[in-house]
């Protein structure tokens, strides 16, 4: 066999396998979205209906009331991301740039916080928020989400800052810039992709969070995840509407991830592998 032929076959196999992985990764997502556009009969048909006339009935059914859960999720996720960036970015910069005695133990502390199980905090937070009369408020949820968002911002942004050669900053300072000038004109523009991906991942983590939201909210502050979860546990599930709720919960996250996709894989990898 000529080498070119062998390469063609090799690539054909590689692409075939890659598409199998792609199909397996996307199929359940597509199945949920399809389920939201089908009629109850189509959703219950065996063998399954592959081609069908989409209907928006399920979305009409969930539209009233959806806004509350959606905006609660949006407010809490955005607020916790903005807060954690405001508090976390300076810390990440300092840990990356200054060499001081406690920087190593601080890094380890922040990393441990990032790994710690939410359950260890959910009981004390429930009791604390109950005592403060903050149960079922968006403020409580935002503050609690800082536990993972903040640690995440510091950890991952430290990696992004470390990737910028310190010489660039030094040169600017030799030219008479103050540290604040350097930050504003050089460092921040250079780490901007990192900030975007960090904000995205922080937003996604808060948007998807369930345990705290489930425990700390009752009525007014319920976000989209506990709302979906409480409906799944109903004895009789309305599959079409549940698929529609799930689609509404997935879409913002998928659109966000795909729109920053150039940086996303790097951000995720850095988060796990930075060292």
């Amino acid at each position, binding site marked *: 066999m000529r080498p070119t032929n062998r390469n063609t076959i090799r690539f054909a196999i590689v692409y075939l396998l890659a598409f199998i992985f792609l199909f397996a990764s996307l199929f359940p997502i597509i199945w949920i979205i399809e*389920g939201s556009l089908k009629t109850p009969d189509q959703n219950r048909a065996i063998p*399954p209906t592959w081609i069908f006339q989409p209907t928006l009935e399920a979305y009409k059914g969930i539209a009233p009331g959806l806004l509350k859960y959606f905006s609660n999720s949006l407010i809490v996720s955005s607020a916790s991301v903005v807060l954690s960036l405001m508090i976390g970015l300076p810390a990440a910069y300092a840990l990356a740039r200054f060499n001081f005695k406690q920087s190593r133990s601080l890094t380890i502390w922040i990393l441990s916080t990032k790994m710690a199980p939410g359950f260890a905090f959910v009981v004390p937070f429930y009791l604390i928020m109950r005592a403060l009369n903050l149960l079922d408020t968006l403020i409580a949820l935002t503050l609690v989400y800082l536990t993972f968002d903040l640690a995440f911002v510091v950890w991952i942004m430290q990696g992004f800052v470390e990737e910028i050669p310190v010489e660039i900053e030094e040169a600017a300072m030799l030219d008479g810039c103050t540290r604040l000038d350097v930050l504003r004109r050089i460092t921040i523009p250079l780490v901007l992709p990192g900030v975007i991906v960090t904000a995205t991942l922080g937003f996604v983590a808060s948007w998807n969070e369930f345990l705290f939201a489930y425990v700390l909210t009752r009525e007014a502050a319920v976000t989209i995840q506990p709302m979906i979860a409480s409906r799944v546990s109903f004895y009789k599930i309305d599959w079409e509407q549940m698929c529609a709720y799930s689609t509404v919960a997935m879409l913002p996250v998928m659109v966000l991830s795909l729109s920053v996709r150039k940086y996303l894989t790097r951000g995720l990898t850095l988060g796990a592998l930075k060292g």
Partner: protein
Amino acid sequence: MADGSSYLRTKAAYFFILPAVVTLVLIVIYPTLFAINASLRNWILYRPELSTQFIGLDNYITIFLSEEFWNSLRVTLIFATLSTGLTLIVGLAEALVINEIPRGKGIMSSLVILPLMISPVVVAFGWRFMYHEATGLVTAYLLPLIGVNVTTILGDPNWAILGVIAADVWNQTPLVFLILLAGLTSLPQEPFEAARVDGASSIQIFQHLTLPMLRSVILIALILRTIDSFKVFDLVWVMTSGGPGTATMTLVIAGYEKAFIAYRMGAASAYGIVILYAILALASFYIRLLVGRRK
């Protein structure tokens, strides 16, 4: 750096770090101390007359003497072992395949990691939808197609844990994929070229070059996944709530039921502290690996 005195530099550093440290003390250290304190008390929410009486280590002793704890530890270990193992195998295969793609690697990676972005609650619902007894895609169509007949997956004590693990593997494989793909792309090319020139087969190259060189990233993925699967709650809670019986009762679900079904806050706090220490012990391996890589 334009060599300011180290004193000035240190002062600036504290100024930058202080807000983060103060926040973390308030939202991490304080709740941890609160939980440790609560774990030493008989704190039952619907019995205020007991007024959070101090009982020493009783809650911990009760946990370690209870069958419930050991069962949930067993369930968690089964879940963690199978889920971690399977995500590693599938993720490794996926990374090896996608690393070989000559064109479209970027877009392919962004698409196959989408499951990781989806909340465990939605994942749990989606798989319940596919596992539905009479009409679900998996139970009523795919499994019979390959000759397996099960009437129910999540309702059967033996199948339930496997059903939950399958959903978790789908959800979490992308993380392993990303870590291993990063490892693969950073490997030096020369040894592979040399091996090919010497006529080594693909399997030999994989076994004697790729795997050993990926060892440290595989180890990182392994520990990260183990930690994550010890923490599992959302997915299992929405799929089975720990049932049928106690077949999928993981550690966190057992603790959750102590807290928010029995309202025994002292006992639940003790569960939380036990889980926290178990995870921190695992995490210290991971941290040591990362800090070792740094330098």
